[in-house]
């Protein structure tokens, strides 16, 4: 490992290609922490946005008029506003209105920090799309299937959980895949509210070392690989879930 760090230093001295996140231990730690922060933020947001999508799609088919209206309103608000504006709104507007907690050094800090607000904001943002995506899948399940289940005495929740959703998931996977890829890329916006994710750390490093070109290329490659892993996983899942004869 030491030899690799040294190689980056020699590379810089000989060619001027400056990769401080390899040879400088402080910058290396920042970059590694930034990478894991991006992964953590992405995974948390993916999870919550899918949960929101599934629950939202179920509530959308509720027999209660007001439940449907509230879900519809939520989708309109979150889908029709830019995610950066939402982040700023949550962090600077809502965040300051919430009660404060006393931290270990006697200061008053907001109950939710940058990371929590990023998770909330991005999950609801992607969740709004996911609700619509899941709805498209639910509507693709033939009425006759649901009627058959009703005839067998299944409850509404039971039908959704065990019959509609498993079939719907297979239909929505390509669209869901698309949205989740977008979500991972949107996590870079969190740097506006100082969540130390990868782009934020890269920005700090290129400001300190004036190596914008190298950092940009590196960022592009890392995100390409990161999203590639997600897409690969989703495609495998899609194949594994495939029911011969259904949907095709």
């Amino acid at each position, binding site marked *: 490992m030491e030899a690799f760090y040294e190689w980056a230093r020699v590379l810089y001295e000989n060619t001027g290609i400056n990769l401080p996140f390899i040879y400088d231990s402080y910058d290396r730690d920042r970059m590694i922490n930034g990478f894991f922060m991006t992964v953590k933020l992405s995974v948390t947001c993916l999870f919550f946005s899918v949960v929101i999508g599934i629950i939202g799609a179920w509530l959308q088919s509720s027999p209660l008029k007001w439940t449907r209206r509230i879900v519809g309103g939520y989708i309109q608000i979150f889908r029709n506003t830019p995610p950066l504006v939402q982040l700023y709104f949550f962090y600077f507007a809502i965040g*300051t209105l919430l009660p404060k907690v006393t931290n270990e*050094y006697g200061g008053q800090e907001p109950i939710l920090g*940058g990371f929590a607000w990023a998770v909330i904001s991005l999950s609801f943002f992607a969740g709004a799309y996911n609700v619509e995506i899941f709805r498209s899948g639910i509507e693709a399940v033939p009425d006759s299937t649901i009627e058959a289940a009703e005839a067998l005495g299944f409850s509404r929740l039971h039908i959704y959980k065990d019959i509609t959703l498993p079939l719907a998931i297979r239909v929505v996977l390509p669209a869901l895949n698309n949205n989740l890829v977008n979500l991972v890329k949107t996590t870079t916006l969190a740097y506006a509210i100082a969540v130390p994710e990868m782009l934020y750390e890269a920005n700090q490093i290129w400001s300190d070392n004036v190596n914008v070109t190298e950092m940009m290329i590196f960022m592009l490659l890392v995100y390409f690989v990161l999203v590639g892993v997600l897409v690969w996983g989703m495609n495998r899942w899609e194949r594994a879930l495939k029911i011969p004869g259904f949907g095709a």
Partner: protein
Amino acid sequence: MLNILSKKVATAVALGAFALTSLPAHADVIDDIKARGTLIVGVKADYKPYGFRDTSGAIIGIEPELAKDVADKLGVDVEYVPVVSSNRMQFLEQGKVDLMIATMTDKPDRRKVVSIPDPNYYSSGTNIMTPKKFGFKEWEDLRGKPVCGIQGAFYNKKTGRDFGAKIVAFKGTAEVYAALKAGNCVAFVYDDSSHVATLEQPEWADYEMPLPTIDDAPWGLAVKLGETKFHDMMGEMIVGWHKSGRILELETKWGVTNTPFAKEMHEKYK
């Protein structure tokens, strides 16, 4: 960026040298000023309290007062031209101003473009602005605590690496002030001269700038390259300001706590 800058400086120097050789010898700038009856000075108009506008729009502050001293010495009127960091040296090069006193950090690169007399008249460094209740005394007190900064500022790394603070960096000062007030960070690390101006405002009454200033960098006033007589005169003026305690007096007048640099220079030349 530094490369580009030094290239630009090199070009500017080359062009400047060319211009000097091709122009006929002209009268000394001091003679020009006296003949004109006005000293034209480039100052900041957005950097409270060093150079800013009062409610009537007139430029006032510490640096305009220093410029007035120079005009008085020459026995002429003074005229202020507002400049910003990115164009101040060009104003001087093109002869639009005779003298520039505009919060400029003295750097070797800049000495190649404009003529900066010694000694330096002022200095600023890095410090924090923090609520008084924390009672921070040393930079080490920031270890493990969230400290706000501006994205891309060079002292973020130093504050994070050497003093162990968790840097929470935002795009601009407006976001930082909002975050500081909301308690997202315990302090704001930035130029001490900016803090001085901010802390004067009543809304920041419960905040202070308690730490010893670090990374102190001197400020230089400047005259056009080649104006040796004016350059030497300004050197004497600066020594005079330090000697008489004029800088300390102006700091007090404009509500700035006397800076260590000004005190030290006063001791040195007293």
